[in-house]
């Protein structure tokens, strides 16, 4: 499997994503420059975390116009997988790859910590290796992570099982305190209609080694690899 990691000016989790897929999945990975027009045959595209264009104006607002984004959108329209993490999630929303928007954390502060997530759907190519209701620990690190969408959109996301991860407490309960940014319905990660684009604020690429505090992000990466392999074999 070949992974293309997009590098926008201001991306800063690009290398972490690289190490996650290369060191732990043994995948081949390439960095794709925001001015490029070619995904170099990547099977999986990662929109990594960071502060593209300094998050000036709105997080992700400027990056979405980068030349490479046209290719990323085309890749997604072909049904190929896109993993959008943190700033990548913000960019994906701005680009219309995912519905909704990510606003300033209600506490008005950046928050970096390990949080608990409940796996709400395993019927996606990003989460098949988890089990439903599983509580995992994955860190967040963001200032603009409050997921918002209009009522219809939320209803559709919920109705179609497209909420993949939700912020919960250690016991798996959806609580106000467990929500680090006041996202609607504690939403931490969603997929698009076709199920091939996952956007999430928490950083699975940072949860790849117990020495870093958690390895709960690895099943996510393995799920993607499994799915790609199945596709090739199918």
């Amino acid at each position, binding site marked *: 499997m070949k992974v293309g990691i997009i590098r926008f000016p201001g991306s*800063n989790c690009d290398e*972490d994503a690289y190490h996650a897929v290369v060191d732990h999945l043994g995948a081949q990975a390439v960095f794709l420059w925001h001015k490029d027009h070619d995904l170099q045959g990547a099977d999986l595209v990662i929109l990594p975390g960071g502060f593209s264009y*300094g998050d000036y104006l709105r997080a992700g607002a400027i990056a979405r116009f980068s030349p490479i984004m046209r290719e990323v959108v085309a890749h997604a329209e072909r049904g190929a997988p896109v993993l959008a993490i943190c700033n990548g999630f913000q960019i994906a929303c701005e680009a219309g790859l995912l519905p909704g928007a990510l606003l300033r954390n209600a506490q008005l502060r*950046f928050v970096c910590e390990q949080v608990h997530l409940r796996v709400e759907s395993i019927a996606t190519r990003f989460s098949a290796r988890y089990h439903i209701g599983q509580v995992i620990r994955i860190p967040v*690190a963001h200032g603009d992570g409050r997921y918002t969408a209009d009522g219809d959109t939320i209803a559709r996301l919920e109705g179609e099982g497209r909420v993949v991860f939700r912020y919960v407490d250690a016991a798996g309960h959806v609580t106000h305190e467990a929500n680090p940014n006041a996202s609607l319905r504690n939403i931490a990660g969603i997929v698009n209609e076709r199920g091939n684009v996952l956007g999430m604020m928490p950083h699975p690429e940072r949860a790849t080694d117990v020495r870093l505090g958690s390895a709960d992000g690895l099943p996510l990466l393995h799920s993607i690899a499994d799915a790609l392999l199945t596709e090739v074999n199918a």
Partner: protein
Amino acid sequence: MTTTVQPRPGDPEITPALIKEHGITPGEYERVVAMLGRTPTLTEVGIVSALWSEHCSYKHSRPLLRTLPTEAPWVLQGPGENAGVIAVKDGLAVAFKIESHNHPSAVEPYQGAATGVGGILRDVFTMGARPVALLNSLRFGPLSSSRVRYLFAGVVKGIGDYGNCVGVPTVGGEVVFDPSYEGNPLVNAMCVGVLREEELIRAVAEGVGNPIIAVGARTGRDGIHGASFASEDLSEASEAKRPRVQVGDPFTEKLLLEASLELIKSGHIVAIQDMGAAGLTSSSAEMAARGDVGVTIDVTKVPVRESGMTPYEILLSESQERMLVVAHKGREDAVREILERWDLEAAVIGEVIAEPVYRVTEGDRVVAEFPGTRLVTDCPTYTIEKRESTALAAARALDPHGVTPLAEEADPIWTLERLLSSPTIASKAWVWRQYDSMVRTSTIVGPGSDAAVIRLRGTDAGVAMCIDGNGRYVALDPLVGGRIAVCEAARNVACAGARPRAITNNLNFGNPTKPEVYFQLANAVAGMGEACRVLETPVTGGNVSLYNENPQGAIHPTPTVGMVGVLDSLDHVTPTAFQRAGDQIVLLGDNTAELGASEYLQRIHGLTIGAPPSCDPAAERRLIDALLDAIASGLVRSAHDCSDGGLAVALAEKSVVRRDQPFGFAVDLTAWADLPLRALLFGEAQGRVVTTTSDADALLALMQRHGVPAQVIGEVTDASSGIEFVIGAVSARSALEPLARAFHDTIPGIMDGGSPAELAVATSHAPTTD
């Protein structure tokens, strides 16, 4: 070529008043006139004022700094460069440095702190190192003041926003609240970077004909005179200087970081330096002086943000995110190409010349010219008469045991809770949750422990780091306080499992021309030097911030020590918190009757009195050697040193620091029942580490071999058992939850109250009333 320097049309006349306004003394002015053989121009006055400011010239501290040890086999670069560098393992090295942004942060906390982080990052990556960690050391007045809460919130947000955006984890630091910092907050930032030894580059201008290139952001009118501003007492006059505040752009910094590292690897350049304090002036003059070459710079070639800027303004601007590069002749286009890829500008603004002069032109007109490198080398140094403050000497002489206990103190748990809720001791998670401490996925130990640990990718090795300093100790006894600052930092690094290797330091003091302040400076430096020699942790660099005074008085003299240590194996990483019920608690070092200068006296009685605890660097060295031996032998499950709040606080912290994984303890201190109870529980005797182990016999035997006192004092219990002290006939017990609340909820409780400080957090903007 002979040139004549002439005043620019419209320049004001050089009068004694103008010289004074520039912070140049009459004696210094005479030196300038003698050096030039004529009256300086306004531009030249500006240059001298910047370069001879305390901040750039160290004129009151250099003779003292020279006494510090700077060498060890692992030191690759000592003081004198943008950052120090030590070898670690397998050809890998780390560069690190600390820098203060005290004055800018007092005026505009958000931008002041943010630009402080920007500056220290540049100091590290201009050595060819990739920044991998940031730390910070902060001092504020008491949080009861809304102005202080505003400053605290703004500084923390400024540090966080900048480092988070650049993508360098902020992994540690310290925050102390004490009335002495009320008008003069301290903001020291430290950066650690990793490089391959062969990639080390120095900021030395070389090669006649080589172009000098300005890189990065454009030059605006911001921060003009920042360097001399940082060298004055804070007063109403400095309030009037507010518009000089600089605004940071971490996004541009990130691009500059990547571009600079690429430039250094490319081999196209000879030298690179940050345009930091005093901007273009100091960077160009210092690079020329290090290379002992001449330079000429044409200010009309400098990309500017605003029209009509004078040479004076261009030279002294402190616009952020700019670099000065000396490239190999003929490689200008290659340099430009790299920068363009990162959307950055580069402009050739001058050249290295054979003629021994420092020359600035504005097109054809020479506006400043100094002979050779004398601008840097001729700066005077001052040695001031030393005299101890009689008030402080008297405070030291007071007997802390004579302080009448409060009635509530009959219950030591009451006192313990008060100490755990002292903002200086309480958890700083409110602060570091705002810092991305995990980006780069190398943070093995983040904030909240004695020291942070970063792994070195591709090896099994790690680097541990911390910042420490205790102004109260230094105020009451500068020599002992200086020793303790270094020893405590070393102990912290050792508790994490690392061998302390070298320090950087920031000397935050008052006005050095006062004999009482100079006494503190001289003795603190002497104490630090002693400890560094014994611990074999040489000083590879640092920073001096003087004049931290306001009309109400000076700050506590506050040297902060940034210590870097090395772990040969990540298996040696040792946590602070208790790990398992049933483990034995072993105290390394010994308890004493010392109570002076303690957080206990400050928090419970509002007193800064008594002598600070004695500090024997040789004993600390034995302790550290023994602890590291024990860790390497797999005998230590957790380690935490005793510092603020003493033994009782250290034990309680080990219990509650991990709120999600608390443990209780039961200890018996009857062996020390003859010591005053307050001193035993809350005194701050040095050289102590609380460890836990599953093999106490082996640990005690190992300690004995090293000649380090050690005793089993109790056992780790389940959280539900709470904590228990037995001291002879006295015993005290508590459930964990009240202690955990005191420790964890104090700062959020103060800061999250919807006060104007909250708004500062929300908008980064200032409430101007209290």
